[in-house]
């Protein structure tokens, strides 16, 4: 994973100590981290690096700093929009909305068709869930009430 990062995780921690806010929050690294927790469990100083990456992504979203990775933050926001409107993730809706936002319509189209033929793509969501409670969760999130 580290090969795809522009700043290595240990360097990210050093930049944090030096308060290089913009450098850290505009890095690719914080978005490339897939939260696999390998570094967290191997860190000799017991630093939960994966958890720190979560915090940095949260800070980056609110910072107004241009993210180092274009599509990943868009994916997360589309993912959350899908939960907000449907309560559950319906994969096809998620994919179509993501493609609409990134304007990359043809990527994986062949694979999508193959998966559809194998019965892996459900055209319609199973059920909308959550109702009022999901609305309340997202209201609080958007207003920052529980943060």
């Amino acid at each position, binding site marked *: 994973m580290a090969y795809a990062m522009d700043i290595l995780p240990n360097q990210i921690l050093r930049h944090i100590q030096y308060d290089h806010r913009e450098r850290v929050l505009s890095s690719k690294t914080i978005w490339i981290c*897939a939260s*696999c927790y390998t570094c*967290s469990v191997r860190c000799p100083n017991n630093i939960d690096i994966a958890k720190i990456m979560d915090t940095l992504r949260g800070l980056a979203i609110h910072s107004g700093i241009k993210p180092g990775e274009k599509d990943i933050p868009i994916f997360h926001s589309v993912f959350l929009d899908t939960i907000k409107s449907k309560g559950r993730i319906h994969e096809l809706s998620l994919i179509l909305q993501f493609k609409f936002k990134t304007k990359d319509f043809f*990527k994986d189209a062949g694979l999508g068709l193959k998966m559809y033929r194998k019965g892996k793509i459900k055209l319609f969501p199973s059920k909308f869930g959550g109702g009022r*409670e999901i609305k309340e969760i997202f209201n609080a999130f958007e207003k920052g009430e*529980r*943060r």
Partner: protein
Amino acid sequence: MKEISYYPGCSLHGTAGEYDDSIRGVSNLLDIKLHELEDWTCCGASSAHCTDEQLAIDLAARNLAIAEKSDRELLVPCVACYSRFKWAEKESKEHPEKIHFSYRGNIPIRYVLDFFCEGPILEEIKKKMTKPLSGLKVACYYGCLTVRPPKMTGIKEYENPQHMDHLMELLGAEPIPWSYKADCCGASLVMTRTDIVRRLSGKLLSMAKEAEADCLVTGCPMCHANLDTRQEELDKEVGENFNIPVLYFTELIGLSLGHKDVKKWLSHHITDPIKALSAKGLM
């Protein structure tokens, strides 16, 4: 009969439908009754915790509050959901003020692989097995969040986990030793940085192949999708011919128990496992 609450999660109602079907099928044969949670919603998975900690806790805690209305344990088949639930459980103990639902952290949250690897269930499988998976070499692939972080999962051998290997041995298969059991496949980066997923998953497939495995076995819907669906692309990219089936461990339990729907489950896979299993005389 054992009764347990069940949170399938979004993937199992979509691309991982055969995982859901095989869990239900196998549970049925083993006298385990699954009670699907009423009105469950998405756990927030890969995106909520990358965006806002409280949102991630809320989305998980809502489901756990539903589960806690009964005193049954909660069975969770997707490791992303499992991991988010375990975080919420930890928060409910350390920072109860962050929990905005009736959830108090009182029900055991069980990942489906850990659950099926437990003594009494293994005994039950052994008793009811009709077709041992003799001659099948399997690479047990645990992935990340099934074992990490160990303070959440409770898995002691998180660098070289063994429980799925033991289960496969019990089913009569031969788990091969390999060093990539708990390496990352790239997970949810599949839609945004497919190149990374191709590289990481390609490495896993190459290493399983080099270790002469007939198939990979997993208990994670995301790992399954990443490893199963892109083998043809990878063949072209690296000039290999992978063609290595990726199975859910519950499908193999079903096969060894002689479940009538195994073929139906396996027919949903992109990399065909039926031919390889037939060649071994197992189907």
